[in-house]
């Protein structure tokens, strides 16, 4: 079972809750995903639409809330959002996200490290979203991050695990769980991340914008399980030369014709 900080998880699929077409679809997709941890964001209330409250849909008793600091451009803004999230009663878990560039939404490594340092000291369980940088992952682990969340590709792109080589190094070196976050576009991407030894994946866009998000959530759940089982089973070696799967003996009856 996956363990992050003091919590254990049966499901290795974490689900983002953004961009779903309706509250009902979101609710059903969460159920279909089997996920036990879901991410949420914090935003100013629209005073003209007071009834639009995601908390009417999500059950805090059933799922662990992982609020993100999306929208933060530096450590200071991320810390402010983190404290607001804690005040909103979500507990002390946090997906730390510092993205100064709206075009790429790539995370700022220096501000992320700075904020991790401060938030860990303040009692937060910090899961930083990072570029797939093995050195940064180690620095964050040393700063007390509960897990590291390297991106597969930029947020919302569905480009898949284009950072595979670096993620493999992160996994090899990490003493904390590695959660591949962002960019995974299909169940096979998630399976690949799990096959190379990721501890979990976080998926949002690929599910929420799918033709049938509920069915896609179930597909990701199966892929994550398949990938994890394959990792545990141990993949066979790769070779550039062919190696027959069928016996090369007992062919005399063909050769003698």
């Amino acid at each position, binding site marked *: 079972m996956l363990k992050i900080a003091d919590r254990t998880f049966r499901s290795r699929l974490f689900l983002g809750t*953004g961009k779903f077409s309706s509250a009902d679809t979101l609710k059903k997709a969460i159920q279909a995903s089997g996920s036990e941890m879901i991410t949420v964001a914090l935003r100013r209330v629209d005073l003209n639409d*007071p009834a639009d409250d995601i908390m009417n849909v999500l059950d805090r008793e059933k799922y662990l809330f992982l609020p993100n600091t999306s929208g933060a451009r530096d450590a200071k803004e991320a810390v402010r959002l983190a404290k*607001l999230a804690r005040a909103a009663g979500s507990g002390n878990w946090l997906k730390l996200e510092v993205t100064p560039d709206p075009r790429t939404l790539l995370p700022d490594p220096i501000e992320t490290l700075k904020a991790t340092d401060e938030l860990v000291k303040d009692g937060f369980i910090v899961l930083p979203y990072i570029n797939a940088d093995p050195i940064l992952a180690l620095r964050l682990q040393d700063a007390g991050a509960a897990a590291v969340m390297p991106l597969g590709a930029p947020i919302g792109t569905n480009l898949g695990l284009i950072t595979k080589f670096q993620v493999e190094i992160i996994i090899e070196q990490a003493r904390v769980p590695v959660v591949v976050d*962002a960019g995974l576009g299909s169940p096979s991407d998630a399976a690949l991340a799990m096959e190379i030894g990721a501890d979990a994946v976080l998926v949002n866009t690929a599910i929420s914008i799918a033709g049938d998000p509920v069915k896609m959530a179930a597909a990701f759940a199966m892929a994550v399980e398949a990938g994890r089982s394959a990792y545990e089973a141990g993949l066979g070696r790769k070779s550039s030369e062919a190696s027959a799967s069928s016996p090369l003996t007992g062919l005399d009856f063909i050769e003698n014709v």
Partner: protein
Amino acid sequence: MKITCNGETKEITPNTSLEYFIRKMELNPDTVVAECDGRIIKRDEYNTLVLQEGNVLELIRFVGGG
């Protein structure tokens, strides 16, 4: 008297508590987090905090996100 809430000017009567104001905005105080003049207000202070002329209030809540 006037306060600013989420960037909008709101007219309130004197002695309006934060809790009353949030409910008047048709919001659930249990799912809204409040910041008054840059200070985060704890849930158990909503009832005792009386809004003052010129207060800048931010009401924030969870939304879908990844």
